[in-house]
């Protein structure tokens, strides 16, 4: 819960690290399953710090991601903004859900992100096989608990989140 001891700088810093991770070279067999780090961080921020202009952060991160990956400006913005909507909308309920269920929900939220990417890639003639968009969903669900723990620690200090 956002309280007085909540650290405001954690969100932007986590987003910058996530941008770096999305440009980090991976071995060939792992590259298709790269987690959508930026989307995951934004989902976290949407659930836990909804008062902090998460949509604005999503727009800025999306623009930087577009510049980083050479995609049409706005592609990642649209995907990230739509991906943030449900976590923001349902944040009070989502905080009460057990971790294993949020893992599944994360896959659902990032499926929205991947669907928008798929749709725009198709529209701009950069289409790849549809199956390749499914791999990140699994890795997103797997890294979610780790991300949750790390960001809770960073944001709230040693005190546990609930």
């Amino acid at each position: 819960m956002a309280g007085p001891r909540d650290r405001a700088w954690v969100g932007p810093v986590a987003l910058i690290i996530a941008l770096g991770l999305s440009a980090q070279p991976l071995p060939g067999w792992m590259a298709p399953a790269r987690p959508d780090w930026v989307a995951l961080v934004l989902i976290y921020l949407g659930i836990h710090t909804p008062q902090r202009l998460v949509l604005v952060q999503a727009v800025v991160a999306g623009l930087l991601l577009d510049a980083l990956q050479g995609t049409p400006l706005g592609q990642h913005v649209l995907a990230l903004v739509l991906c943030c909507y449900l976590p923001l909308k349902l944040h009070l309920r989502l905080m009460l859900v057990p971790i294993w269920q949020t893992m599944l929900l994360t896959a659902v939220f990032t499926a929205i992100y991947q669907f928008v990417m798929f749709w725009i890639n198709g529209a701009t003639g950069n289409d790849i096989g549809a199956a390749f968009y499914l791999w990140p969903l699994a890795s997103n669900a797997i890294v979610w608990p780790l991300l949750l723990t790390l960001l809770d620690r960073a944001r709230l200090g040693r005190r546990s989140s609930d």
Partner: protein
Amino acid sequence: MPAGTPGVHRVSTGPALGLRTFLCAAAAVLLMLVDQRTTLTEKPRAVLMTLVYPIQEAVAVPAQLLDWSDDATRTRAELARENNRLKRERLLADARLQQLNAIRAENDRLREMLDARPRVGASVRVAQILEVDTDPFRHRVVINKGGNDGVFERQAIIDANGVVGQVLRAGPVSATVLLISDPGHAVQVEVVRNGLRTVAFGSGDYDQLEIRFLPNNADIEVGDLLVTTSLSGDYPAGYPVAEVVAVEQQPRQAFARVTASPAAALTRMREVLLLSPTAAPQSAATETEEATDDGGT
């Protein structure tokens, strides 16, 4: 938010959230349309590319450290061996260059006789590839030279062996390069042996290009070298692109299946060369040859 109302997030609940999401999404769609259809977004994109450049540099650090430690832990014997090998290669290359000068002089004379325009010279500059991943399904790399160093969009890029690709987007300090193996890339080529013109498409596989739309009876063989032509658009003519590795006649189809492997070492290169066409036919690179030409004839 006043401290007395814990748990109430007045800015993020209610219908306003849906409206704000819609506005952001609509703005993103509009931005995409503007980006695809006009050139208005070039400046903002350059700013964004400069902003993310530190991130790209930081991400490339581990790979650079590996390179550095590889260099730092070489033994003397290894270095001596490499030095010997390089000297040998240099000698061979020099020997070949001597012939090249004579042939170029001859070519210039013949072109003059034919009243053909002299070939456009090109000057090159070296850029380093940043070890940065963009997208596993697009073949793009980031180089550490940008608009400030004279890099421009659609500029041709080669390595020591052949054509690498062209600049897709040039920021002020970095640029994104589209490789010839990207599925969205195509370049017109000709077979050196007989001048047959065709188009080499990227296949999405680093060591394969597809030569589509060649009829089954086209005169093309395994081992044929494909080079750029004067119709290759952004590429200057005569640079090697690929070598044909498989020709498969398909009797029931209109076209043969021809695949080629890129001449450039697309996955192993560290440095690439940026080609800049020079306005005058006698470029700095060819000036010395011109001098020897005058002396010789």
